[in-house]
């Protein structure tokens, strides 16, 4: 039969790691290309969609494609080392072979967001899903209103994508605020928890959408802050993490009631989240 990913839901594309970037002491970024040039050329995805990365012999895990669909030289995944598979991934080098099952899941409502002001609030590795949407919007800049980014991490050395931050800070077509929980003497930006800094920034909810991702506790307080600023549930977008296996709505692993995070998610508005059974 198939030998063709797409026909066989479990057969990954074979891919090669083109570049490994050490982001922080526990996050590495992998830039990968699909081995078959035809597959690479035809690969389509939307910002927010995820992939299952395979290290054969270890298994698969879920990571968001954090490069934007407007830049297709490679697909980028940033991986925080937390357990078995992520530890093995961190040992891989340029030229190593992995499997990629992608794209999976839904995406950010980037069409509906056209014409709106967008406030990104990212914490730690939670910046990864925001990055794909942010770059997509910067590459289609005229489609969107004001773009604001608040990105926080525990300490300056925990900031991923540090090589991009100078550009983001310098750009005239977006405004960027960086914050850390614990500063260092040479840290020139904010020190403070993300929700507090967000309140200080005081973005207007008028014609705006906020997109937030990060550790659960940060998301919780960020949403409270957004509410305090006057954002409605429909104006708040976040992503859910659930343990996933098949990624295609079959294995029954990732359900919240009758919704499957791998298919109906990972992106939800806060209004949608409130409709879900309380089993996060």
């Amino acid at each position, binding site marked *: 039969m198939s030998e063709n990913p797409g026909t066989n839901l479990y057969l990954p594309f074979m891919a090669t790691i083109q570049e490994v970037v050490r982001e922080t002491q526990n996050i590495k970024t992998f830039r990968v290309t699909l081995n078959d040039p035809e597959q690479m050329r035809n690969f389509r995805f939307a910002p927010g969609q995820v992939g299952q990365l395979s290290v*054969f012999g270890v298994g698969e895990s879920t990571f968001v494609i954090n490069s934007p669909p407007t830049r297709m030289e490679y697909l980028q995944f940033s991986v925080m080392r937390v357990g078995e598979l992520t530890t093995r991934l961190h040992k891989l080098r340029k030229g190593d072979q992995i499997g990629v099952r992608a794209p999976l899941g839904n995406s950010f409502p980037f069409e509906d967001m056209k014409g709106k002001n967008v406030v990104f609030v990212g914490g730690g590795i939670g910046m990864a899903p925001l990055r794909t949407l942010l770059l997509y919007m910067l590459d289609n800049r005229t489609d969107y209103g004001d773009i604001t980014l608040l990105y926080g991490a525990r300490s300056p050395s925990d900031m991923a994508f540090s090589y991009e931050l100078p550009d983001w800070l310098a750009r005239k077509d977006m405004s960027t605020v960086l914050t850390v929980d614990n500063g260092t003497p040479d840290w020139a930006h904010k020190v403070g928890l993300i929700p507090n800094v967000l309140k200080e920034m005081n973005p207007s909810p008028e014609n705006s959408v906020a997109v937030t991702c990060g550790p659960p506790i940060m998301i919780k307080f960020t949403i409270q802050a957004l509410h305090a600023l006057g954002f409605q549930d429909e104006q708040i977008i976040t992503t859910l993490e659930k343990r996933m296996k098949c990624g295609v709505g079959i294995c029954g692993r990732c359900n919240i009631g009758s919704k499957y995070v791998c298919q109906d998610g990972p992106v939800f508005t806060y209004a949608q989240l409130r409709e879900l059974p309380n089993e996060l």
Partner: protein
Amino acid sequence: MGAARCIKKDALLTWLEEVGKSRLVLAPRAQGKSTAFLPFDPAKGISLSGLATSSPKQALIPRHEALLEFRYTKTDQVPAQTGLAVRELIPNQPTLVFGARPCDARGFTVLDRVYDAGAKRDVYYCARRDKTIVATVACTEPADTCFCNRVGGGPGDSAGSDILVTELDQLYVLEAVTQRGEAFLLEQKLPDATELADKAQAARAAVRAAMPEGDSLLGAPDKVGALFDEMPFWDGVAAKCLSCGACSYLCPTCYCFNITDESKGGQGVRVRTWDNCMSFQFTLEGSGHNPRATKSQRMRNRVGHKFCYYPTLHDGALSCVGCGRCIAHCPVSMDIRRIVSKALTYEKAAKEHSNV
């Protein structure tokens, strides 16, 4: 129904042996205290008395199934690069499942909706389904744990079967249900039994009529869904559960699976194995967070999936087929009928209570 053939009861084993020459035959066989669907062995016979302990779902979703095979290689470049070859292992084994019961076969329809969902086809499941003939034996003596008739089925139903087998005195009447069943039946050297079809139908109807009615559970989805946040209800029904998962392993419709790699040296297989939502590990995340950390939450998911979530996604069809295996074999006698019946009346009871 389509073509009808018959076979004398005492010729059944010979016929199965004959069929076994060209396909794998899985049939219930007694093993100690339990009965399981095993490769047919004429010397060991088959056991058609009542429902087998385990369900025949393993014919379509094996407990352990290799999906892909992989092998790392070294290229002769300098410095050597690691190459990787991955191959699909698509099953290609013609099979006859003989002796499933109507609830088991209905279980296959539950799996079909998940694994063969239009554009989203699980090639492994579909390859097996396409090559498998399900010959279901209509029940004559429903057990007191049986409740197929309360969840949309019945002891003589043909849904999910390719062939329906009805006992008539010293005969089995085999009737084709699907084209796949018809094609198979026409290949067999068995006498025509078209004139027995009415009698077979009457026999099945008589068994159905004799089965105690019991309240229908088809209205459960709304009620079970509405109880999601009613934790005292779930704490109550799950109190004695051991989280052993026997209910789920024996269930003909529990289909959740895990995917893991097994390797040795530079090669191995990616396998899928039955998983079990009654286990704490099922939803445990790397951070230590577990959305279903308590057995009440897990019981809620198991009952919720069968009586609310699945029906929500599949036009009201329950994913419980009423075989009663989970009732008969639970070490602490959990009874899913009672849980759902309780859910159906719970709100009312609570209201009456608050009126006092």
